[in-house]
C-alpha cells in the first residue's frame, strides 16, 4: 500500500478548515484522494478520569465543558444516566424545560454548521447570515438560562432554573421570528443551483456504510436510517409532544444539509409545544436527591450530532462516580471518512469531512508519545488491550458483575 500512496496533502494540525487540532493526511494522486489517515489525540483532557474525582453534582457542570457547541447534551445524558441509576422519574415541568434547552441547542448547532459549511465552500454570505440568525437563539438562551453558552441548567433530578411565565410570550415571538429567517435561509440554500452542483452526489454514505461504521444522528438519517434516541428511547418530554424524525435518501453532503435544515423546523415545533405546555402552570422543577446508592446507570441523549452516551457507576460509599464512560457522536461519525472520502477530489473532501459536523474535542482519545524520540509509545491495539485488562481487574475488585454487565453479556 505504501508505495502506491502518492503526495500527502496535510489537513491539520492547524488548518483554516477545522477549528480544532486534528490531522488528516490525504494521500493524493493529482486532485484525487486515494487514501485518508486520521491522527487525533492533540487535545485529550481526561474528563472521564477527572469526573471520578468530582462530586456527583459537580460532574454535571464538568461534562458541560466537554464541548462548547453541544454543551447541554452531555449534562442531559449524564443526568439521564444518574437518574437511571437512582430509578427516579423527574417532574413533568422539568421534562419540558429539558426538552426546550435540548432543542434550542439543536437549532443553534445546526445553524452553526450551515454557516461553517458555507464558509468552507467559500460562500461567506451564508456563513454570516446563518450566524446572524443564530444570535436570536443565543439571546433566548441568555433569557432562559442567563448564559449564551454553557447554560448550567441541568441538575440531577431536574433543572436548576424555572422558565418564568412572563418570559414565555417573548420567547414565542423570538422563536417565530427565527423560524421565518430559517425558512428564508433554507429556501435560499436548497434552491441554489451552484450549491446543488457542488454538494449533490459527493461523500455518499449508503445504508450499509452507516451500519458498518455505526454512524448516528443526522449523518445516519441523511442515508435513510431513521435512528433517533428521542423517538427510539424517549426521555424528557419527547414522547409528550408531536414531532417526526426527518430522513433523506441519498446520503450525500447535500442531503445532510437538508436533514439538518429541516430538523430545525421540527425543533421549533417541539419548543413551541413545550412552551405552551408549561405556560400558565406551576409545578416542581426538581426532585430532591440526597444520596446515590450503589449501582450503575446509562443515559442517552440525541445531541445535534447524534446519540451521546454516558455510563456511570457508583459504589455507594464515595460521593463521586467510580467509573464514568462517555461516548460522543463524533467518535462514530468521523471514521466514516474512509467510506465517503476515498475517490473524491481535495475540494470535495474538505466539505465531506466537515459534512458529518465533526466535533473533535468530544472525540479525543488518549495517545502516549515519547517526547525525545517523537514517537507513539502505545499503538491503538495495545491501548485497547490495556483497557480490557483494566476492566477485568475492576471486575475482580468489585467481586461481582453489575446489573448492566449481566444484561449485556
Amino acid at each position: 500500500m505504501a508505495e502506491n500512496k502518492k503526495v500527502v496533502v496535510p489537513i491539520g494540525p492547524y488548518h483554516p478548515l477545522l477549528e480544532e487540532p486534528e490531522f488528516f493526511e490525504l494521500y493524493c494522486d493529482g486532485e484525487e484522494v486515494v487514501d485518508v489517515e486520521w491522527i487525533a489525540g492533540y487535545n485529550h483532557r481526561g474528563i472521564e478520569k477527572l469526573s471520578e474525582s468530582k462530586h456527583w453534582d459537580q460532574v454535571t457542570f464538568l461534562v458541560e465543558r466537554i464541548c462548547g457547541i453541544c454543551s447541554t447534551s452531555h449534562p442531559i445524558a449524564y443526568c439521564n444516566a444518574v437518574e437511571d441509576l437512582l430509578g427516579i422519574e423527574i417532574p413533568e415541568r422539568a421534562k419540558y424545560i429539558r426538552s426546550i434547552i435540548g432543542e434550542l441547542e439543536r437549532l443553534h448547532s445546526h445553524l452553526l454548521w450551515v454557516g461553517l459549511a458555507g464558509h468552507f465552500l467559500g460562500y461567506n454570505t451564508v456563513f454570516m447570515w446563518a450566524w446572524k440568525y443564530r444570535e436570536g437563539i443565543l439571546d433566548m438562551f441568555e433569557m432562559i438560562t442567563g448564559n449564551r453558552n454553557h447554560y448550567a441548567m441541568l441538575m440531577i433530578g431536574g433543572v436548576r432554573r424555572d422558565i418564568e411565565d412572563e418570559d414565555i410570550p417573548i420567547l414565542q415571538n423570538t422563536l417565530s421570528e427565527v423560524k421565518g429567517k430559517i425558512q428564508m435561509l433554507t429556501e435560499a440554500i436548497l434552491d441554489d443551483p451552484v450549491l446543488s452542483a457542488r454538494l449533490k452526489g459527493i461523500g455518499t454514505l449508503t445504508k450499509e456504510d452507516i451500519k458498518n461504521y455505526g454512524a448516528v444522528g443526522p449523518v445516519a438519517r441523511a442515508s435513510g436510517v431513521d435512528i433517533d434516541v428521542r423517538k427510539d428511547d424517549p426521555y424528557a418530554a419527547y414522547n409528550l409532544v408531536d414531532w417526526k424524525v426527518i430522513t433523506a435518501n441519498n446520503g450525500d453532503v447535500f442531503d445532510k444539509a437538508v436533514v439538518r435544515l429541516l430538523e430545525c423546523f421540527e425543533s421549533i415545533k417541539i419548543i413551541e409545544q413545550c412552551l405552551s405546555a408549561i405556560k400558565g402552570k406551576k409545578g416542581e422543577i426538581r426532585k430532591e436527591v440526597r444520596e446515590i446508592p450503589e449501582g450503575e446507570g446509562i443515559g442517552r441523549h440525541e445531541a445535534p450530532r447524534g446519540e451521546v452516551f454516558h455510563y456511570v457507576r457508583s459504589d455507594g460509599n464515595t460521593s463521586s462516580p467510580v467509573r464514568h464512560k462517555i461516548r460522543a457522536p463524533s467518535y462514530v461519525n468521523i471514521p466514516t471518512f474512509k467510506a465517503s472520502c476515498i475517490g473524491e477530489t481535495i475540494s470535495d473532501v474538505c466539505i465531506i469531512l466537515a459534512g458529518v459536523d465533526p466535533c473533535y474535542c468530544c472525540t479525543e482519545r488518549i495517545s502516549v508519545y515519547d517526547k525525545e524520540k517523537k514517537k507513539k509509545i502505545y499503538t491503538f491495539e495495545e491501548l485497547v488491550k490495556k483497557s480490557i485488562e483494566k476492566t477485568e481487574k475492576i471486575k475482580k475488585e468489585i467481586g461481582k458483575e453489575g446489573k448492566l454487565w449481566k444484561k449485556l453479556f
Partner: protein
Amino acid sequence: MSVLYSFSYFIFSFVVLSIIGLFVSWIDRKITARIQWRVGPPWYQNFVDIIKLSGKEILISENSNKFMFIFSPILAVTSSTICGSILFLVLRKNLGFGGDLILFVYLLTIPSLSIILGGSSSGNVLASVGISRELKLLLSYELPFICGIIIPAIKANSTTSLIEIVKFQEINGSNILSLSGVIGFIVILISSIGKLGVVPFDLAEAETEIAGGALIEYSGILLGFYKLARAILFFVIPSFIVILYLGGTPLNNFLGILIFIIKYFIILILITLIRNTNPRLRIDQALKFFWGWLTLIGIMGILFVLTGM
C-alpha cells in the same frame, strides 16, 4: 532622457495605481461586509495592511528556489502596473500603438504566471496543489476572455489598438448597445472574475481547502506585493472592460471622468455581487463552465459580430 522619463512614469503610475487599487479593493470589501451584515473595515484598512506587511519578517523556506521566490511577486506587481500605465495612456492622453491590445492580453496573464512561478519555487505541497489549479484555471478562462476581446476588436474595423476601439465607440456609441456586445460583455465579465481569482473561481487560493495555495509560504512584503498586484488588477481589469464595451465618453473633462467612474463601479459591484452569492466551484466544474458554455457563447458572439449584429 527618455529612459529616465519612462522610469519615472512607471514609478508614478505604480504609486497612483496602488492607491486607486487599494481604495477600490476597500470598496469591494465594504460592499461585501454590508451584504453580510457586517460593519466592514475603515477606508484606510488596505493601506495599513500593506504597511504592516512591509514591516514583517520575510520567511523563505529552505526547500525553495530563493531567486524565483523573491522575483515572482515583483514580476506580478510590475506587469500589473504596466497594464495600468497603458490604460492611463489610452484614457488620459489618447496615446497608443497598433497591437497594444495584444500586449495588454499578454501582460494580464503574467500575474497568474508569477503566482505559478512563486508557488512552484516555494516547495510546499499545498502550494503545488494551488499552482496546478491556477494553471488549469489560466488555460480555461483565457479562451472565453479572448473571445470577449475579439468581439469589440472586430467591431472597430478589426483593429488591435485600444485607442481605435475607444474612438470607434465615441463615434458609434458603446459596444454593449448591440446583441454581440451584450454577449461579449457577459463573457468577459465572468472570465475576468476568474482572472481576478475571487469566488467562485478562487480555487488557487481556496483558503479553507488548501490554506492559501500558491501563496502559503509567502510572508512580509512579498505577500504584500501579491496583494498589491491583486489590488491593481481590481482596478485594471474592470477599466479594461469599460474601455472595450462601455466606452463612448471622452475623458478630457470632469464629466467624462465622472461617467467613467460610474461605469467602473457598475462593473465592480457586479463582480462583488457575483462573488458574494456563489460558493467556490470545483476545478473540473470551472473547466467545464469556461470551456463549455462560456466559450460557446463567446464564439456565438463572434459569429454575431461578423454578421453585423
